[in-house]
């Protein structure tokens, strides 16, 4: 179990890699969320009609990977409070996506500590596509878990 006191500014979480993402991975995600946008599974439409270089990895799928990275780090006694994502560039079928997060700040509130992080997704060539920021809540060592359901602190 990770506690607020264990975290140092500059610490980078172990990365979470997904892929190489095949057309089967992309189709499975489209089917799971009932997203029939053809650029995610119809190669002919994506490349010939929409002039994309290849099938496109859905932004909504990439969000999941960052959320999972943070959730697995803080669960079950902490909480992922906020995540911001920006879709700055596209990722394509065949890429391996590694979600990353680095601690940038921490602050104490009554009952639990807050940790701010920069987050993002790098492909196998190290190109960033989904930069963002996140804040997680962590319990103090020897104290109670972060309240669940989560109630944001009044002054944060």
């Amino acid at each position, binding site marked *: 179990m990770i506690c607020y006191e264990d975290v140092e500014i500059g610490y980078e979480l172990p990365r979470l890699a*997904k892929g190489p993402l095949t057309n089967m*991975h992309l189709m*499975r*995600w489209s*089917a*799971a*969320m*009932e*997203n*029939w*946008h*053809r*650029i995610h599974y*119809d190669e002919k*439409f994506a490349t010939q*009609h*929409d002039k994309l270089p290849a099938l496109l990895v859905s*932004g*909504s*799928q990439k*969000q*999941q*990977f960052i*959320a*999972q990275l943070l*959730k*697995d780090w803080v*669960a*079950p*006694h902490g*909480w*992922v*409070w*906020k*995540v*911001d*994502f*920006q*879709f700055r560039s596209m990722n394509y079928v065949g890429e391996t996506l590694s979600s990353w997060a680095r601690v940038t700040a921490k602050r104490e509130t009554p009952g639990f500590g807050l940790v701010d992080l920069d987050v993002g997704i790098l492909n196998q060539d190290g190109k960033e596509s989904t930069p*963002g920021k996140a804040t997680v809540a962590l319990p103090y060592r020897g104290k109670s*878990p972060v309240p*669940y*359901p*989560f*109630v*944001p602190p009044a002054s944060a």
Partner: protein
Amino acid sequence: MSILTEAAKAYIGTETEIEIACDVVERGAVRRYAQAIMDDDPAYHGEGPGAERYGGAVAPLIFPTHMFRRPFGAPDPLQEKASDTDFDGSGISTTQGLPEIESLKHLAILNGGSSIEFRRYARHGETVKLKSRYADIVEKETSKGPIALVYIDSDYLGSDDELLCRVRRTYIRR
């Protein structure tokens, strides 16, 4: 030249009625979703310390935002446009149930990103509700000309009307 008219700005603050997802949080839908994101967290099938803490089997954090599907009896856009080779299949509204902004309708739309606040997991069997509003609409000058930034806030609520998560989506119109 400005692309943001007073008529467009008048949409700020416009809200939807509460919409109820056509299905409850289904175990099978959670399983397919969790397998698609390759996250085999035991809390999603009701096991482990997570399920114990969260009060039973839960869905992934972002799952409630993908529950607003085409219900039984609603028109089928895939069938209606089955012979249209230019139809891209998206058929997904980007307004979260809000009315289209008339004076921006002719502009291309890009997903600029999102910001999500999480409060709790959705539990299996739970009904999820959605309420959205135009939070802000602003114009920004870029090297390629003016763009409009449309911010939509959406609250996803559980069966008890408790907040599950709050999403701010940014759409770029240019």
